[in-house]
């Protein structure tokens, strides 16, 4: 007795073959999306092998074997040679018995079809299909699979470059702090060297600590306590320069100090506030930094009573318009969203002549975020 419902349910034999193929491909793709490494090759090769159905399959980079699946393991040593030959040519190549010396009786592997894996027009490795006889179908399949793998690796490259871009932005931010701030701070310190040597020495030490923190290499996150300590040093140095013109109020709830925040996410906001606050002519500016505990979240506000800003310009700055001078704002915003999700972007409250308040909300816990 046949079971027609099942047949109808799964479609024809050809349909089912398609589904199997798509399924194998979908199983292989997560590993490949991490780039071509020994680990990802080992995790994906089983599924690629299922796609091709040849006696054996190997993945290599340009110099050595990353993974082998199937029988005839003794041929694995020959893969690097085949890889080098294919990389030189840059297109799919067929190798026969002469290239695959073998003294194991009854070995099924007599020919190899080797396709290059190309990422951004550069050969990064090869896909090697081993079989008893070369057939046009197998060559075509090997070619198609290697193209698909290349596409996955391309996507991996895209992910990696997105991360690199983010890191580069942080580095740019570190570099951006330095030039005029370093110049101005050193100038201010120099003015104290004769009149108040002790203060000059203290400021110089603060300066050293500040730069050490800002140029720190490791770790994407830090605690709010560390970040605020750096902000304090920064303000101390600015106050050395501006004296009474810069007034600062800090109100920090000690409960939120251990919260993990993206490295250098408050400092650029304070720097913006100092710049805006002091542009307000005569009396100088007043800056308020508040960190509050709100149950599951921590709220940090940086406020100045300066000239304020056109909300449209702020909107463009947050969208990452590089033409504006507050690059820091857009960068901090995107890093906050990246770490905690889109609910946690910067909120800027401002208008012409009304001062500026920047509000940062940070959850006390987010998976994967720790100082």
């Amino acid at each position, binding site marked *: 007795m046949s079971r027609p419902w099942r047949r109808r349910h799964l479609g024809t034999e050809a349909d089912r073959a398609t589904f199997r193929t798509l399924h194998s491909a979908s199983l292989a793709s997560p590993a490949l999306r991490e780039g071509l490494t020994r680990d990802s090759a080992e995790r994906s090769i089983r599924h690629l092998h299922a796609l091709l159905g040849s006696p054996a399959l190997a993945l290599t980079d340009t110099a050595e074997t990353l993974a082998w699946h199937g029988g005839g393991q003794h041929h694995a040593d020959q893969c690097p040679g085949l890889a080098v030959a294919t990389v030189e040519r840059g297109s799919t190549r067929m190798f026969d018995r002469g290239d695959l010396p073998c003294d194991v009786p009854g070995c099924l592997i007599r020919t190899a079809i080797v396709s290059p894996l190309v990422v951004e027009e550069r050969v990064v490795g090869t896909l090697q299909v081993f079989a008893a006889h070369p057939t046009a179908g197998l060559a075509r399949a090997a070619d198609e699979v290697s193209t698909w793998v290349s596409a996955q690796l391309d996507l991996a490259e895209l992910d990696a470059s997105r991360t690199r871009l983010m890191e580069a932005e942080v580095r740019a931010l570190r570099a951006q702090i330095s030039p005029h701030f370093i110049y101005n701070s050193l100038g201010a310190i120099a003015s104290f060297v004769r009149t108040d040597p002790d203060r000059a020495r203290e400021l110089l030490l603060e300066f050293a600590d500040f730069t050490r923190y800002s140029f720190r290499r*490791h770790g994407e996150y830090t*605690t*709010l*306590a*560390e970040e*605020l*300590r750096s*902000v*304090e040093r920064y*303000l*101390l140095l600015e106050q050395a320069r501006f004296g009474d013109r810069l*007034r*600062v*109020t*800090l*109100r*920090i*709830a*000690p*409960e939120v*100090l*251990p919260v*993990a925040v993206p490295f250098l996410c408050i400092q650029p906001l304070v720097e913006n506030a100092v710049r805006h606050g002091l542009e307000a002519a005569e009396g100088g500016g007043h800056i308020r930094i508040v960190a*509050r*505990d*709100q*149950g*599951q*979240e921590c709220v940090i506000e940086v406020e100045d009573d300066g000239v304020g800003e056109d909300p449209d310009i702020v909107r463009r700055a947050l969208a990452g318009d590089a033409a504006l001078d507050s690059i820091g704002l857009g960068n901090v915003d995107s890093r906050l969203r990246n770490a905690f999700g889109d609910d946690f972007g910067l909120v800027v409250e401002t208008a012409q002549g009304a001062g500026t308040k920047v509000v940062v*909300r940070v959850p*006390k*816990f987010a*998976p994967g*975020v*720790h*100082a």
Partner: protein
Amino acid sequence: MNPGLDAAPGIVAVTLVTVATLVIGTWGLRFSRTTSDFFVASRTVRPRLNASAIGGEYLSAASFLGVAGLVLTFGADMLWYPVGWTAGYLVLLVLVAAPLRRSGAYTLPDFAEARLGSRGVRSVCSVLVVAVGWLYLLPQFQGAGITLSSTVGAPTWLGPIIVGMVVLANVTSGGMRSITFVQAFQYWLKLTALLIPVTVLLAVWAGDSAPTAGGGTWSVPLAAGGGQGLYVTYSLIIATFLGTMGLPHVVVRFYTNPDGRAARRTTLVVLALLGVFYLLPPVYGALGRIYAPELATAGRSDALVLELPRIMLDGPAGELLTGLVTAGAFAAFLSTSSGLSIAVAGVLSQDVTGRMWGGHRLGGVAAFRLGAVVAVTVPCIVALAAPNLGVARAVGLAFAMAASTFCPLLLLGIWWRRLTSVGAIAGLVAGGLGSGVAIAWTLAVSDPEGWADTLMGQPAAWTVPLALVTMVVVSLLTAARIPAHTGRFLVRLHTPETLDLDRG
């Protein structure tokens, strides 16, 4: 309740504490450091202050009223309650405090998610946090009813409503939200409110030529004890020793510590503070044996602490001391219920009220407020409707549930690398269902007799092993699903912060 009762001191005390709480809640931010001097950031919360705050939030109606009442009725066996409530912190200190802090988790669901990388475990934990929280809130509200009825003569339903309203007003206005200073103050208020009266009462007792209770030693139960005493005692020990680590309002306070070392030091100080505090309620119990045995037979033993000053002392001195203990008791309800309501409301706002409902989503503050309303209203209504179990015993059930769910999760999560998310869920469900059924049974059966009722009335001795075994066995069966980051995560939990090491 008590005809001819002078309500004045009680009313004054309750009003004072309520007003003070609301004022501090509303204007509380003014107390937090306002300063323009530098190095504020380096002033993290010191272990001693944090420990006082934990003590303030932890010492609930059960500790303030319940222990004395239990000792009065059931004798020295009941000292296991205060011993267990203190020793729970010893287990916490040795096995959990530092790794939990290093995990970076704020709540228990956070820890589950970070450790096992699974939203499923997180949801189960959230449900359990709400269950434990409500179970713990219930006796707080009932205790408030007792307090008002025995000091002011108000009807029993008034207490839960007043405490519920005050807590709700506080929590939703954003007040008292983990302001460490306020909670720390609550501990010292509670300690003073017990210490001064007990000193005076002991002096009265000594001046009375130190009589002893009639009829045998003071440690023998007044009420007839069953044959299941040994089981009940061991079950109680398991529940209290292992339950403390699973209390939602205690766990969140550990986040305030800057690192694992500070978390350990905090726990050590908590042990000392609780040790001192728990010396006092049994003294009330012992004095009650001598001067007020009729409270036990009348079934109003929970009111012992409140009524003893008036029974032993006449005139304004007795009234003054009554006012003091009433204030302490009210502070106990308010601080514990605030902490619990915040914890429950936080979970509700994250996983229930903050979700999409009919294509519409509430914002953070609105979701939290709605969560707070639900978090307070439900146990308040239950407190009005449910039978009075005795404050300490009801809290004991909350401990039993925490011990049979979060304790296995924390212990295995921290110390066993082969825990899987499926195993964790299975264990949590097994422990939660087991203790939940037992609690429902206990609430439904009015006068317990026989082994079945005993097993249900004090379930920890069988639900904790049940949950642990389920978690281990199911984890071993699903060994393929051990989270990939387990090794790295455990390294982070167990390495001191001073070690320079890539914790990525």
